[in-house]
């Protein structure tokens, strides 16, 4: 693929404005240009006031999530030319308060996400057969969730219930139930057990579709429901917890 000019239509919003608008920029791209690199080029060459979040540039920090052509994606791993559209529409994540341009306030997300107190490091299940060097008991790795918020942006229920706990936080709650590692599964279960929690989900599975890191929040929510249902039945029939 050769060099090509691609038009970027970017949502803009600054403090004090009542409604956002779109600005268009033309960016020279080659076969390796990612959406994030293109946006940084706009910032460098056309408009230094364009604000966006990013860190690692390789899909592991979860900070560069945005909507590209209407789909929630990590902009650092989206190849612009492979999108195949003459214009690329870039918008901030939905269901989060907008701060400036492509930057949304992630505080409501993290407020919920940290509630179940999921330990972030877990034992790696990928290499059970691997030779562990002397003195090391087992390999560990980080939890899958990048805290990118793509799932929250894509969830239709999140859009109509501002108090909904949301897919990522409930996936974290299920991880605590499935593998407590010192956290309190009872708390996590009770926390998700309400009309803004796991029962609010309407099985659209959009969270799982957009998740870039195989967290599968929809299935985690269904697992929470399954566990809660089991416990309620046991309680009704006097079988203990």
């Amino acid at each position, binding site marked *: 693929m050769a060099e090509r000019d691609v038009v970027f239509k970017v949502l803009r919003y600054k403090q004090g404005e009542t409604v956002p608008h779109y600005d268009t920029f033309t960016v020279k791209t080659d076969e390796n240009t990612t959406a994030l690199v293109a946006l940084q080029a706009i910032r460098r060459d056309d408009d230094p006031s364009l604000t966006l979040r990013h860190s690692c540039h390789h899909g592991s920090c979860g900070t560069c999530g945005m909507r590209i052509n209407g*789909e929630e994606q990590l902009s650092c791993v989206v190849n612009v030319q492979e999108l195949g559209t003459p214009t690329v529409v870039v*918008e901030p994540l939905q269901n989060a308060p907008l701060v400036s341009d492509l930057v949304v306030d992630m505080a409501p997300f993290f407020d919920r996400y940290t509630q179940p107190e999921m330990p972030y490091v877990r034992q790696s299940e990928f290499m059970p057969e691997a030779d562990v060097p002397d003195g090391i008991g087992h390999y560990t790795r980080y939890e899958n969730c990048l805290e990118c918020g793509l799932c929250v942006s894509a969830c239709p229920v999140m859009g109509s219930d501002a108090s909904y706990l949301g897919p990522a936080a409930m996936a974290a709650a299920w991880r605590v139930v499935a593998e407590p590692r010192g956290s309190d599964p009872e708390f996590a279960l009770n926390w998700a057990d309400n009309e803004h929690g796991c029962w609010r989900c309407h099985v659209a599975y959009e969270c799982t579709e957009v998740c870039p890191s195989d967290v599968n929040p929809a299935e985690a929510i269904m697992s929470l429901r399954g566990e809660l249902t089991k416990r309620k039945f046991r309680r009704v029939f006097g079988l203990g917890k």
Partner: protein
Amino acid sequence: MQEYRTTRDGVRGERPLQAWFDVRKRNLGSWAFAINRLTGMGLIVYLVLHLIVLSTLLQGEQGWDKFLEIARSPFFLAFDIVLIFGILFHGLNGIRVALIGMGIGAKNHRSLFWVLMFIGAVLLVVSAWKVFTI
């Protein structure tokens, strides 16, 4: 730190109807979700209409007969098919949501959708045939 004021995303936030029904670039689950809401609302409207229509019985036999005449017109019968579609979709998708919610078929939610929709389509064709031939 300087205080900043946030706003909702002007494109979609705080527009719940758009959040439910804007299925552009979305996947099967969102389509099922949106159609489920639409049919749900449609069925509520139908229920109200149904009660209003039943109230014509209060006007005695004449009023009711007049209504039956209209109800047998092809336009009204076509409306019945739309109604049956709404009932079938909402009911069958509801079964899917309930099953998945209990952890049954969560891994195969797409196949579950299509199997139920196939059953729905067969029932819809049979009902349409009955509606127009009885």
